């Protein structure tokens, strides 16, 4: 058997490799399949030739399917990581990335953008981002005190802000023009169809540094699970760590939401599935959530846009339809 101190590296490396392979497979599937049938050979040569390749399959590959797959990867990773971090920070297995009110604020901002007739990028996205950051600031402001994590009050503040925003959203939806309504509803349920190549650098540029920060914070995340005071006595500057984690994760979630709307369940289900398979060590879980979350959303999005005759259903619908039964299955397994 391997010496003990090598086991962790092997576990991290091994699971990451496996999940990376799974992700690669899912991405290839997402590039090969879609609502229209394209010749596989043409797609492959278009893939090899690169974005400047001429012809229809290349256009479909590089203009439509590729940006969408990349966005699904980034968003799936971000949402899963968001759920993982909030579950650890708040020590609550029901936490998910929207729990601190980021979703409510982003939605309000986005709807206002749609109603003003702005296009998805940059108009609606910018407003969604501003909305998300505003509600985050409100939640943190409502929870004053030196320790941002004490008790359930942070959670409660987030729930309240989300509830308030939900009411605002209902109101806006009720008064919105019919013409805008569809765009709004699709966005509210998660809409990856609006991703264009120009989206990607900004999204990647915002998310990838956040991933890096959270990869580095894996050990403090483990320690925080032991309790704030215990973590302090083990050398973690809890206030600084919690603030950094909170801000990084909220930034990550906000950027994701303002690109693809509110896709639910990914942030709740993926961390739990991976935790039940791989154990609670965040040094394994953080890279696993990045890769596994990406694969999950890529797959769900592929299903969402391949429904024949129905056009496209929102990605959030598929993640819920798949995620909820999976979650229940997990709970039953754990109960046994």
């Amino acid at each position, binding site marked *: 058997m391997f010496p003990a101190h090598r086991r962790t*590296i092997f576990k*991290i*490396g091994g699971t*990451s*490799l496996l*999940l*990376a392979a799974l*992700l*690669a497979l899912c991405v290839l599937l997402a590039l090969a399949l*879609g*609502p*229209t049938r*394209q010749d596989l050979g043409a797609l492959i040569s278009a893939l090899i030739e*690169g*974005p*400047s390749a001429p012809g*229809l399959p*290349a*256009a*479909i590959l*590089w*203009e*439509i*399917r*590729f*940006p969408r797959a*990349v966005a699904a*990867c*980034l968003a799936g*990773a971000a949402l899963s990581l968001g759920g993982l971090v909030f579950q650890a920070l708040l020590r609550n297995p029901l936490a998910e990335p929207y729990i601190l009110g980021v979703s409510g604020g982003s939605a309000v901002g986005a709807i206002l953008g749609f109603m003003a*007739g702005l*296009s*998805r990028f940059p108009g609606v996205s910018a407003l969604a981002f501003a909305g998300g950051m505003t509600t985050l600031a409100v939640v943190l402001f409502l929870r004053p005190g030196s320790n941002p994590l004490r008790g359930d009050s942070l959670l409660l503040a987030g729930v309240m802000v989300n509830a308030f925003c939900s009411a605002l959203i209902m109101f806006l939806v009720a008064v919105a*023009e*019919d*013409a805008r309504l*569809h*765009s709004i509803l*699709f966005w509210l349920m998660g809409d990856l*169809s*609006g991703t*264009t*190549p*120009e989206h*990607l*650098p900004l999204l*990647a*540029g915002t998310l*990838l540094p956040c*991933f*890096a920060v959270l*990869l580095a914070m894996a050990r403090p995340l483990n320690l925080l699970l032991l309790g704030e005071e215990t973590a302090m006595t083990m050398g973690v500057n809890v206030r600084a760590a919690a603030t950094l984690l909170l801000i990084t994760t909220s930034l990550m979630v906000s950027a994701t939401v303002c690109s693809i709307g509110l896709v639910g369940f990914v942030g709740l289900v993926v961390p739990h599935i991976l935790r039940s398979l791989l154990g609670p060590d965040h040094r394994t879980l*953080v*890279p696993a959530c*990045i*890769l596994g979350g990406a694969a999950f959303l890529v797959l769900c999005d592929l299903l969402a*846009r391949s429904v024949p*005759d129905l*056009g*496209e259903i929102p990605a959030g619908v598929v993640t819920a339809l798949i995620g909820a039964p999976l979650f229940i299955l997990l709970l039953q397994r754990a109960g046994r």
Partner: protein
Amino acid sequence: MRMRGEGSGSALLAAAAAVFAVCLWEAAPAAGRTVVDQTGRQVTVPDRPCRVVALAPSITEMVFALGKGALLAGATAFSDFPEEALGLPAVGPYVHPDIERIAALSPDLCLAIRDGNPLDSVKRLERLGIPVYALDPRGLDGVIQALENLGGLLGAGEEAAGLTAAIRTCRDRIVEAAAASGTRPRVFFQVGVSPIVSAGSGTFIHELITLAGGENVTAGPVPWPRLNAEQVLALNPEVVIITSMSGGPNQGEALQALERWRALSAAEAGRIHVAEAALFDRPGPRLILALEILARCVHPELELEPCSLPTVAQSSK
């Protein structure tokens, strides 16, 4: 130790950057001319478009009305008139068209509608090198203009002229007759059952009501005002018109609405009518038929000659 996650993340970023840098894939400029579409945009369209995608059911109807149905390679969902349109490949709903399905049809021209298609969809199609000509058929005048523009685009100039002339004639005849009647009955036009939605001043329905010689009781700045039942009863219109999709699931809804208005004086006078929604919803060539129906409801006493629109044979080119 480099985490695997970071590795694949950097690769994705590099690829995305490459796509961004080499982006804006442009088709070879097609032989064509630059025109100004109905919303004022400059578009380069092919001289003789042969694979056209209609991005709204009203546009589908217009193309078929001009006899150029054979040019259509695809249309958005619910393009159900005329019957030949049912066989066209669907490209998603007009409020959320599926870019990939449209692109896969290799169209050389897309016809969009200003009120309904998302601007983002138009932009994405243009980025793929597909010219998009936007129509804005608001009201009868808008429809007439749209038909003329389409005629020029699709090489159906003569047919367009004939069709628009017939529409104008019919309209003028109805307006004259209505004006001569001397009365302007108060009309309540209901487009939505639950919630109750009516038409305000800026809409083409208001225009139709006025042309038909009626007075729209819900005239006002709000384009699609919502009312509760009390307000309708208080308005006490003389004529009520409810639109429903005949034969569809909304049939039950329309009957429900009828029930509700039992207390109106219009009910006793038998002046509550249910009309075909497709005629009133779609700003297409059949709008004139909607006007005719409206005129008959508002002024049943008038003897109106039925409007006849020229049937244009579908040419194969």
